[in-house]
């Protein structure tokens, strides 16, 4: 690779064989002379001696030169090897290979040593071309002369474009061609002949106005379309949200029409729509208890026809608790005999229904509470009564045993009296000293004492 150095290199860095800066410098081990590797290799192959001092030298005596020398020559600034092609790039010598391989605009794929293609100057414009490129260049050379197709004026190709724009003989369309004028003719005739008679030219003011208006409308249309797109996307988002809400609400979701329908008809059909598990099963006990406990102060506030279904004429029908707006009650009135408790009312909002359900749960809790209390009281009452009965039974048992005992004593006395003194008065004799009641003289309790008068009849 032959390189041109931008500055004259220091003479100490020149190989004395090729007289150029060292390329891959090597130093002889025996005599410490430095040469390019290629130069000294060739010189040794020619004569096995050092070119400088003629001492015997072989290839084995060559070692790479000191790195200082190598850095000095590698950092010399060189021109690109395609300088003759026009590349003015210069860089450190060690970087040139990368430039030639990758970035040089004049690089060739065939290799670096390619000889310059012989260039031929164009006879018209003077630019130089390779021989085969010249044939392509000649018909399109900007300096070649061509004739204007309208006025037959001869002029350079590069000026043809500007000339056509001004040539008075050029065939051009009317200026109103965009509005529909079909006239075409030489440029000179346009101003002088056509324009005064062009019907479109007469309307040019209108066209102008129309065009500007149209442009404005188009612009507005574009803007509106854009807005529409934005809104559509927003609507889609909301629809998606709505759908997810609908899914989340499940059976609670009703469209407006259904709400109106159920409320107008007194909610007759709504319970049928509910899934079974959502229908309140049996709240009859608490409802009854509330109906006994509370009067209904809110009752009068509602129109009678809307609430008539809730309150049939029967005396024991349940009444709404104050504060329960409508959670219970739909469909309850008509089926009073079988279903005294209303199912959940779906004609209110979900929130209202939830409030109602919560109130119901609270009420149920209270009902269960009081029921428990009441059954507690009943149980203790019953227990006490049972206790008393057991006591009275025990007393009766005792009385009976005493009677049996007296009878046994009588029989004993009879047996012994028959065998003994006979007829000794049954009252005065105590045959059984172990009797807890002692002697039988007047110790017998009155029989009436052993009969519990009250609850005994209910046993």
């Amino acid at each position: 690779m032959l390189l041109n150095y931008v500055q004259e290199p220091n003479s100490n860095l020149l190989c004395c064989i090729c007289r150029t800066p060292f390329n891959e410098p090597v130093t002889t081990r025996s005599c410490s002379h430095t040469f390019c590797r290629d130069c000294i290799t060739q010189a040794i192959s020619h004569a096995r001696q050092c070119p400088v001092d003629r001492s015997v030298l072989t290839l084995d005596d060559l070692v790479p030169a000191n790195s200082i020398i190598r850095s000095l020559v590698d950092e010399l600034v060189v021109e690109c090897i395609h300088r003759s092609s026009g590349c003015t790039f210069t860089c450190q010598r060690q970087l040139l290979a990368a430039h030639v391989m990758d970035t040089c605009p004049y690089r060739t794929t065939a290799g670096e040593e390619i000889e310059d293609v012989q260039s031929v100057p164009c006879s018209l414009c003077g630019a130089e071309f390779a021989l085969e490129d010249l044939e392509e260049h000649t018909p399109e050379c900007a300096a070649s002369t061509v004739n204007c197709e309208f006025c037959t004026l001869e002029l350079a190709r590069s000026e043809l474009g500007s000339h056509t724009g001004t040539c008075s003989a050029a065939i051009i369309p009317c200026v109103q061609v965009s509005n529909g004028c079909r006239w075409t003719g030489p440029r000179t005739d346009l101003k002088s002949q056509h324009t005064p008679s062009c019907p479109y030219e007469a309307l040019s003011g209108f066209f102008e106005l129309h065009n500007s208006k149209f442009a404005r409308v188009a612009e507005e249309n574009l803007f509106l379309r854009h807005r529409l797109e934005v809104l559509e996307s927003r609507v889609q988002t909301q629809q998606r949200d709505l759908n997810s809400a609908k899914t989340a609400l499940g059976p609670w979701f009703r469209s407006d029409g259904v709400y109106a329908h159920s409320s107008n008809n007194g909610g007759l059909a709504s319970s049928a729509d509910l899934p079974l598990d959502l229908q309140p099963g049996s709240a009859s006990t608490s409802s009854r208890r509330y109906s006994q406990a509370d009067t209904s102060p809110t009752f009068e506030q509602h129109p009678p026809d809307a609430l008539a279904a809730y309150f049939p004429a029967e005396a024991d029908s349940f009444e709404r608790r104050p504060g329960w707006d409508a959670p219970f009650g739909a469909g309850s009135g008509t089926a009073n005999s079988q279903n005294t408790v209303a199912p959940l009312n779906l004609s209110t909002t979900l929130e209202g229904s939830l409030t109602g359900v919560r109130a119901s749960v609270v009420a149920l809790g209270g009902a269960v509470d009081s029921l428990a209390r009441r059954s507690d009281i009943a149980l203790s009452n019953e227990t006490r009564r049972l206790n008393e009965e057991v006591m009275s039974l025990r007393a009766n048992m005792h009385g009976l045993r005493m009677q049996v005992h007296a009878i046994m004593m009588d029989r004993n006395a009879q047996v012994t009296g028959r065998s003994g003194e006979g007829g000794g008065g049954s009252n005065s004799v105590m045959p059984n000293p172990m009797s807890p009641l002692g002697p039988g003289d007047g110790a017998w309790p009155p029989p009436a004492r052993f009969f519990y008068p009250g609850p005994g009849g209910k046993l």
Partner: protein
Amino acid sequence: MASIASRRLAKELSEIKSEGCPVGIKLVKADDFATWWFTIEVMGESLYQSEVYTLQFRFDAQYPISSPAVQFVVKDGLEAPIHPHVYSNGHICASILGNEWSPVLSVTAVCVTLQSMLASCKKKERPVDNDRYVRNAPENPKKTQFEYHDDSV
């Protein structure tokens, strides 16, 4: 390789033109990188005082690895100096032009060496085997296998 030779010669030529030749040596023509002509004159007191000879250098593609073919021009009235190492056909028996050539040497170095060779001559005479050599000599002096025996001159 050919371009290395021409490059090296271009460098030598530009040096000659910029710095001039050594005293007594003048460049006659160097139209290409194949043949150069110089005139050589021995300066100071010598047997060849005020005699001017013409040297011809011919380079091959292996220059400077291989030596140039150097001889005195002996035609068109030009003659070779009468010297024990210079044949009448202009061939020069000098070791530096043969096996002692070194790539380090240059055209001007060869000229100066030949100049001093002439200056150190003590007796103007042809080589002893001049006639025999000239009869059989090849055109190119490089093809001759000289025997270098006289180190004194």
